[in-house]
Structures are given as structure tokens and as C-alpha cells.
């Protein structure tokens, strides 16, 4: 019997590990292509040389690769991974296939915060010119999450309460954002709209470090509760019967999702689609055992955003499109192919 159970378990986990390896491999390739492409047509040799030996390579090539392309390519990975993980946990704790990191109005609040900085020049933190817009976006994202958190806590963290409170917050910040857009000058309006599209082009090593640090601190916290979060997908009643403190777990995961989303959004704007679809892709491939679902959601999110980053540079050669516009174009065909080829029952 020991052998039989080991065989069955290996068969289940082996398939999942294979999917994880394949997506990780494709992600590495996508990242390399991302670094190789851009308005300045550099050869593979020049790029590889600039990465491996920055001191002896052409200084212009070095600047393009190290200051522009690498931060953008790596930012695509960490932001994609953060949105993938946040989406996976949001769908898990709300038990809702339509949930994404933005379901609860985080994007609207971040958009309002950013617009406030652009239009009125009002910053939450003084003397932080470079970080004025992202800091505002971050703070307002957290304000919206905190509002939902306290409402939810007062109602035993019921899923329905969280979703309804989130939708109310979403509409509130949409209205406030519309008001600011109405008051803005033409230039300011353009800047706000550009921020809302989402773009990786303002990525720097500092911003990359901050998003990575948050991703690597928050994700292990989800991993520690992997089995409990998996059980939550069986429904609240069932999870409680297995001895899980559902309210506590949901609020804890919600805090993690909020911090992760707010950090990702504040630097790159509201990049949609990734946080919604990456978890679905992972679910279709490896199911909802969080030990595989969580890492694959991160990898799928990173891959989607990397592919979109490449796409944003190839649509019109010499121009970089805002990535938020491109993500759906790149992801939808792949997503549809999965829906059409997989047998049903993935939610």
C-alpha cells in the first residue's frame, strides 16, 4: 500500500511540478526577449556583453541595458508575480472567480491618489518629489483597504460584506477621480490618463527593490497558511468544520493582498487583466493546492506581464505602448485556448 500511495502522490505532484518548470522556462525566455527588444535596436551580442561585462562594453549600450531595459524587464516579472499572487489569494478568500487584486477598489483609490498628486500637487508625504505620485497612490490604496478591513471585521469577515464594501469604495473613488479629471488642465489630464493606463517605463532599481522586497516578505506568509487557504476553497462551513478560524485567516490574507497590490500598483499604475487571469491559468493547470497554485500564479502573472512588455515594444517599432493597454491583447488568446482545450470544472 505504501508503494501505491507514493505512486499516486508522485503522479499528482509530478504533473504539477512539470507545469511549474515549463512556465518558469518560458518566463526566462520571455525575459531575455524583453531585454533584447526596444526602440534602440541592439544586437544580442551587445546586450549579453553589456550584462556580463558592464565595464568593458559600450557605455551607451550599458546605459540602455542597465538603466532602462533590465529594470523594466525585471519590474515586469515582480509586478506580474505580485498581481498574480494577489489575484490568486483574492479569489481564494472571496471564493469568487471574478475577484482580482482590484475587485475591492484598490485601483480606483490608487488612481485617485496619483491624480491628486498630478492635478493638485498634493502629496501625503512632504519632501518626496520623485515618489510623490507613487506614495500618494500607495497611501490611498491602503486607505481603501483599511476601510474595507474595518467594515469586514465588524461583520465576521463575511465574503459578501467584503465584496459589497469594496464595490462601494470603488464607486466612491471613481467619482472622486472623475471630479479631479474634470478640474484638471489638459496637460494634467493627459498625465493622469497615462498613469491610469499603467506603464513599466518609469521603473528604476530602487522601485524594483521595493516591490521585490514586499513580494518576498508577503508571499511566504501565504505559503505558511497554504493548507488552510486550500481548505477555504471548500467553503466557509467546511473549512470551519476542519478546525480553521475562517475570519482570522480571511482578514490576515486580505492584509497581505492589500499591501502587495498597493505596492505593485503605486509604481506602475493600474495594469489590469493579469491579476484576474493568472490565477485562472494556474488553476486550470495545477488545481488549487496552494503549494502549487500560489507559485504558478506568480509565474503566470510574471509571464503574462513579460510577454505584454515585449508586445508593447513590437506593436509599433520604435515606440513603447503603455503596458496596461497591451496585457489583454497578449493574454486573451492564450486564456481562450486554455478554456477551449481544458475539460470544464476549473471553478
Amino acid at each position, binding site marked *: 500500500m505504501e508503494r501505491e500511495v507514493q505512486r499516486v*502522490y508522485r503522479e*499528482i505532484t509530478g504533473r504539477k511540478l512539470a507545469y511549474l518548470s515549463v512556465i518558469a522556462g518560458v518566463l526566462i525566455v520571455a525575459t531575455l526577449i524583453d531585454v533584447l527588444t526596444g526602440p534602440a535596436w541592439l544586437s544580442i551580442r551587445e546586450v549579453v556583453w553589456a550584462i556580463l561585462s558592464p565595464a568593458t562594453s559600450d557605455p551607451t549600450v550599458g546605459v540602455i541595458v542597465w538603466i532602462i531595459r533590465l529594470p523594466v524587464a525585471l519590474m515586469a516579472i515582480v509586478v506580474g508575480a505580485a498581481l498574480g499572487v494577489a489575484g490568486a489569494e483574492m479569489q481564494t478568500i472571496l471564493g469568487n472567480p471574478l475577484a482580482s487584486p482590484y475587485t475591492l477598489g484598490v485601483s480606483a483609490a490608487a488612481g485617485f491618489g496619483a491624480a491628486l498628486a498630478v492635478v493638485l500637487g498634493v502629496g501625503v508625504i512632504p519632501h518626496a518629489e520623485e515618489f510623490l505620485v507613487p506614495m500618494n497612490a500607495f497611501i490611498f490604496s491602503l486607505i481603501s483597504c483599511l476601510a474595507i478591513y474595518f467594515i469586514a471585521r465588524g461583520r465576521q469577515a463575511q465574503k459578501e460584506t467584503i465584496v459589497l464594501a469594496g464595490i462601494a469604495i470603488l464607486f466612491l473613488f471613481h467619482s472622486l477621480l472623475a471630479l479631479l479629471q474634470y478640474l484638471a488642465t489638459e496637460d494634467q489630464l493627459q498625465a493622469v490618463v497615462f498613469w491610469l493606463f499603467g506603464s513599466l517605463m518609469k521603473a528604476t532599481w530602487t522601485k524594483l527593490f521595493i516591490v521585490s522586497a514586499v513580494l518576498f516578505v508577503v508571499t511566504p506568509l501565504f505559503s505558511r497558511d497554504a*493548507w488552510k487557504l*486550500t481548505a477555504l476553497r471548500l467553503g466557509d462551513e*467546511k473549512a470551519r*468544520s476542519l478546525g480553521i478560524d475562517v475570519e482570522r485567516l480571511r482578514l490576515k490574507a486580505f492584509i497581505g493582498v492589500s499591501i502587495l497590490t498597493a505596492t505593485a500598483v503605486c509604481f506602475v499604475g493600474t495594469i489590469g487583466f493579469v491579476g484576474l487571469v493568472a490565477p485562472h491559468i494556474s488553476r486550470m493547470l495545477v*488545481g*488549487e*493546492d496552494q503549494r502549487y497554485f500560489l507559485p504558478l500564479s506568480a509565474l503566470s502573472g510574471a509571464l503574462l506581464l513579460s510577454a505584454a512588455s515585449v508586445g508593447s515594444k513590437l506593436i509599433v517599432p520604435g515606440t513603447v505602448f503603455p503596458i496596461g493597454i497591451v496585457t489583454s491583447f497578449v493574454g486573451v488568446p492564450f486564456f481562450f485556448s486554455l478554456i477551449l482545450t481544458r475539460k470544464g*470544472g476549473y471553478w
Partner: protein
Amino acid sequence: MKLTVSDLSFSYENTPILQSVSFQADPMVTAVIGPNAAGKSTLLKCIAGLLKHRGRVALDGREMDGDVARKVSYLPQEIGSPAALTVLEAVLLGRHSSLSWRVSEEDLGLAFGVLEDLGLEDLASRPINQLSGGQNQMVSIAQSLVKGPEVLLMDEPTSSLDLRRQLEIFDLVREVTVEREIITLVALHDLNLAARYADSVIVLNKGRVHIAGGPRETLNSEMISSVYGVRSEVYTDDEGLPVVVPKGSAKRRRHKR
């Protein structure tokens, strides 16, 4: 080992659901029966620690919290949402408190052993969202058994199962109860299943214990008429167990007259 429930009361929005319920249960199968809204499910949830209640629930004199609560396994009536998990993964969730990122051979062996006991080993790698309602109920039963509980609480565990499966499950529940000397409380609607498989019966009516005792003492026409409002005849079979044959609602008979 003894489970003691003393003076347990529970109200939902000022409506009393359970009122001063007291009983003791030994390591055997105890059926909790009664009409709809009698408080059967609520009683099991209170014992499982899922509802805040008044009164005391104790195992061998110790309050049901912390380590003691971990010895209780509760199987709710609801099967649960069909998540994208294999049967083996779903059963492993029953042991989530002892699992880490890497699943030990012991946990795997226990999960697979329960699947074999239930005849589900061939389904181990099948996703639970592709199973029938009955198969899903079997998986839920496996989840509650794999924990290795000392107190097993089951709310209508066989409601979605065919006759053969019902009997197989109750044979297994009896076997597990006797072998492991655990206290098993099963909320049931089927009086004949209670008669056949329970060593002891607690009859709940309107949130109170109407009568408690062995199946022969509790399952009689008088109780069935006063608690369920149903006319019935109760025979004794070859094994000396009561067999309930319903004859119609007591109301209807009065109406006919």
C-alpha cells in the same frame, strides 16, 4: 472516555434553538434524531465548538477547547464547494494541522488507508469537481475520519448516498467506533438506520431532549406520534431491533375522522 453535555442552550437572534440540553455519551454510536428544526445540527455544531453557546461541553471532565477540541472531528451536512483538488488532496486537508509544505509518508499512508476503507482508492487522483454528489459525500466522510478523532460528529452523513452505500458507510462508522473506541454522534432522519446502527438514541424535539436511551426503549409508536406527528407501527426483527413502519400523518387521520 465520556462526552458530557450539561445545560447547553443556544439562541439565534433571540429565538431559542436549544434549551438546557444535557446528556452523556460513551464510546459507541449515538444517533441524534428528531424532526426538522429540532436542533440536531445546532447541537453538533455547539459540541464541535463552532457556535457560541451557554452551558458546558466536556470530554472526560475537560472543557472542549485547545487540545481537546483537536480530538473532535465534525462532518457538516453541506458537502462543500467543488474546488479544483484531487480526492487525495481533499482528504489530506483533514490533517491540515499536522501538514507542512512536504507531506509526510505517515500522513499520506493515513489518507490512502481511509480511501481504501471507503473503497475510493481508485478515485485518489480524480478532481473532486468531477465527482458525483454521493462520491463527494464519501470524500467528506474520509476527511473527517483521517483526522483520527476521539469524538466523531456526523450530520446526516449518508443523505446523498444510495441504499448500499448508506449501509456500507454505517458498517464502517460502527467498525471505526468500536475498533478505536471513539464517541460517535450521528444526526439522522432515518429512524431505521438509527435502530440498526446506534447503540444509543437521543430524541430531540423543539430544542429539548424528549427522551434518551437504547433504540428499543426510545423508538416506539408513542414517541413517533408525539415528536413527529406520525402514525406508525414498530416491529421487532429477528435480531431484536425495532423496525419502524410509518402509516401516515397523525393530522390526516384526525382529518379523516
